[in-house]
């Protein structure tokens, strides 16, 4: 079997050295009832690469990829172009097949790039310090809420009406499990500033999102002021990292914690995962951050090196007093983020953001000409919600037949009945003028 190097001769020799009769001797502690006569039935036997490849390829071709035809789906994951260099770098054996850098002397490759990742995320979010990645944006948001409760010793968080519903669900689940009260403002296209009024003396933090799930860009500074007035924290969430080159970033809006999704830089759509969660905070909250932190130091010869640090916050040391239970995070996706960010640079990211905004404006201009269509999002970066004269689900199905994946119906994320006639559509640098005119034409036919 191609992945198992031991030969029959090896096994016999090794059993002899150990002094065991048969491999079964090692399984003596398994209770009788759980001992199986042979391989587990109901499963096929091993197969060669050709057979396995055929099975997987057959499954693969039954999916419609973002590259085939017109594509405007967003809501937390975005179709961007990733330079070929990025995939080459993350396929390097030395990055792909290594683990958390427990032995820094032989893990400087991982640690050096994590230090670059932390610097890039801090700069992008305009915050003081960033950790070495979380699973994704939604768990990053949930951990931010828990951190706020730890820091403020309060047990109530308030979520905006524009927070991505999946992020809200993940946050609610984790908070309520620890008896933390979660107040969700009603879904609103442009309601982030309502957070200011919702904060009180018991609030640990308010969580706002810009651009929010409807694409609305908001300056959360008034929310920050209101929160700080009550000694509460502002958690500023984002699901489209490219936007931060153009819209006010968390740090410029007075956020204490920034939490978001890094998929749109360096990572593929991957049907929802793996992605990479970004987590950054102000300097004074550093020691309360969840996850791994990479720090600079020197070796015995005084040469600069990097190590995992402040691990006394983490589960493998603080166990039940840890800031979070996270161990494995999203290392390789963080490297993909860093490689793409290194290629882009601030200058390239800005231009990428402008191209995205161009595409979304052109899309909005085109869709507005369709009778009965109304753009609802007042200020957007590369994604907006629009009203359809007919039920959104039906519109999307008819668009699909015409080769256009027109976006996400709000009702897929929100409880039924709230915005059944709203579609959220995104455009990126991959969107062509033809895509946009095809969308508008198809919509005209349907509506």
């Amino acid at each position, binding site marked *: 079997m191609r992945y*198992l190097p*031991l030969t029959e001769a090896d096994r016999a020799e090794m059993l002899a*050295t*150990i002094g065991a009769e048969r*491999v079964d*001797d*090692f*399984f003596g502690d398994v209770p009788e009832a759980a001992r199986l006569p042979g391989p587990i039935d*109901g*499963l096929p036997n*091993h197969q060669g690469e050709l057979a*396995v490849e055929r099975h997987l390829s057959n499954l*693969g071709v*039954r999916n419609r990829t973002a*590259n085939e035809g017109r594509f405007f789906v967003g809501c937390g*994951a975005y179709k961007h172009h990733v330079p070929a*260099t990025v995939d080459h770098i993350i*396929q390097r*054996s*030395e990055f792909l097949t*290594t683990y958390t*850098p*427990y*032995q820094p*002397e032989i893990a400087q490759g*991982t640690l050096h790039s994590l230090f670059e990742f*932390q*610097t890039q995320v801090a700069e992008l979010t305009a915050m003081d310090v960033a950790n070495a*990645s979380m699973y994704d944006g939604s768990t990053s948001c949930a951990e931010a809420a828990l951190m706020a409760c730890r820091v403020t010793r309060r047990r109530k968080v308030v979520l905006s009406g524009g927070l991505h519903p999946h*992020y809200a669900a993940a946050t609610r689940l984790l908070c309520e499990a*620890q008896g933390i009260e979660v107040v969700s403002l009603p879904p609103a296209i442009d309601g982030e500033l309502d957070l200011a009024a919702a904060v009180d003396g018991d609030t640990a933090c308010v969580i706002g999102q810009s651009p929010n799930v409807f694409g609305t*860009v908001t300056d959360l500074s008034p929310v920050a002021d209101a929160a700080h007035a009550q000694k509460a924290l502002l958690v500023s969430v984002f699901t489209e990292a490219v936007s931060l*080159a*153009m819209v*006010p970033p968390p740090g*410029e809006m007075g956020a204490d914690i920034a939490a978001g999704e890094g998929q749109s830089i360096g990572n*593929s759509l*991957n*049907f*929802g*995962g793996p992605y990479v969660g970004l987590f950054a905070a102000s300097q004074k909250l*550093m020691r309360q951050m969840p996850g791994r932190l*990479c720090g600079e130091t020197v*070796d*015995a010869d005084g040469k600069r*090196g990097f190590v995992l640090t402040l691990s*006394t916050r983490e*589960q493998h040391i*603080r166990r039940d007093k*840890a800031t979070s239970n996270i161990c494995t*995070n999203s290392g*390789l996706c963080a490297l993909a983020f860093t490689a793409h960010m290194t*290629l882009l*640079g601030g200058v390239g990211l800005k231009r990428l953001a402008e191209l995205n905004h*161009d595409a*979304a404006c052109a899309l909005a201009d085109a869709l507005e000409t369709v009778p009965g269509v109304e753009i609802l999002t007042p200020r*957007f*970066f590369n994604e907006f919600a629009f009203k359809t004269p007919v039920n959104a689900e039906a519109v999307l199905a008819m668009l699909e037949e015409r080769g256009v*994946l027109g976006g996400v119906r709000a009702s897929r994320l929100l*409880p039924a009945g709230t915005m059944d006639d709203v579609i959220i559509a995104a455009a990126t640098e991959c969107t062509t003028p033809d895509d946009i005119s095809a969308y508008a034409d198809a919509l005209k036919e349907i509506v």
Partner: protein
Amino acid sequence: MTMNNQGRPTSPTLVDNRPEGETISGSRGLLQAEPLIFETDRWNQTGVDLPEPKRTRSRLGDLRRKAEVSLPGLSEPETVRHYVRLSQRNYAIDLGFFPLGSCTMKHNPRLNERMARLPGFADIHPLQPQSTVQGALQLIDELAGWLKTLTGMPAVAMSPKAGAHGELCGMLAIRRALEVRGELATRKRVLVPASAHGTNPATAIQCGFTVDEIEAAPDGRVDMDDLRQKLAVTDDIAGIMLTNPNTCGLFERDIREIADLIHAAGGYFYCDGANFNAIVGRVRPGDLGVDAMHINLHKTFSTPHGGGGPGSGPTVLSDALAPYAPVPFVERDEDGQYQLIEDDRRESRDSFGRMVAFHGQMGMFVRALTYMLSHGADGLKRVAEDSVLNANYVQARLKAVMTPAFDGYCMHEALFSDAFVADGIETIDIAKALIDEGYHPMTMYFPLVVHGAMLVEPTETESKAELDRFCEAMAGIARRAAEGDMSLKTAPVHAPLRRLDETRAARKPILKWERPEPESEQLAAAE
């Protein structure tokens, strides 16, 4: 609970016996010197060619980022060289034996990487209409089938992002079950063996439970008396978090009895499945009374560790907990169409809700299914047998020079204590010496129940020749440690860097690069 010295701050004394021959360039032969990307002159440059934006009428009003994103942009040649040079400093499974106990650092098949990159899996959006992703949903369903069949469990939640997240899923299902039974307020206590991985207690606390630690018996397993004693009172019991095989690399003999005791006490049996590699294809957790168990696809099923992730922690559930599984999950309707149930409010189910955005780690699902199809039921059984055979072989060849923590055969990992080590020498010195011999050290100072623990997990993808060579080198180092050879303190000498000053890193944390102020720059350098 003594402070785990896993993070024992090394404060290396400055050493002098540095082989001369420093170079002008800072590189040494093939090992290239390489600065941080911020220490290049590539500020306001870019390595990506993008068309000129039209900058038509903006829809952003006056909302703009004030300070430009100030990050360097390297050209493609500089970027490739930067990361290829950095990769030269990393140890990896593809380079050599990587026996990190409890991490299952097995070979990552390349076919898995190719399949995960098929456009049909890598280039589809989680919120596309379900009719356009039937192949992806079928794959998730097939993988779920393999996981349920291999574990003998009726249900599985696929969305957890890693092992710890799978633990959260299992404990939240238990929490939801207690809530439905109206006993959430009273049943808070979760029993956790002292040898458990740090994520277990951290997860319990995150779910609002309290942690009650069970002592380890002299034979490295759960102390049944202490357990029974802790179950004297049962009305506050939520459950137990037991790792099997446990983190000492031993199968919990009394697992059936433990399950029955917990169930009798009205609690649930959460099992940490990190060590599943020892029994995959041979023993089904479902036959052992388990109620919930996370599986680390990046351990047992070879999806790459990637320098610390991404992982994937699908969690199998018993009938008792299945109704409480999180959304989303895949269902196959009668005419073979696959449906993703994302928001389950049907009365019959009591799902604890959604724990993460979207549907789980599709990239890891494709790799894991490719791995399972490649091995098949017969191959997976051989995986468990060879992983256990390899661990016992290492233990047998080293027990003469090192002290096995417990007597008798081990499962997939061999645990040694530092009893054989002379005063003045510590486990960390042995680890650093192994680096010079070309090996990644084993897991150290874990589990906590063994002093100066050294946990060696070879996995089934190591050849006998590789194990023999490791045992020779390990024995040589063990003898030096037993003789108190202080030169061990200077190891490593052949690694890209010598021992790093972790105390300094924690005392004065520098967690990002900052532009040195001109005048204070000299100061910093001199410090």
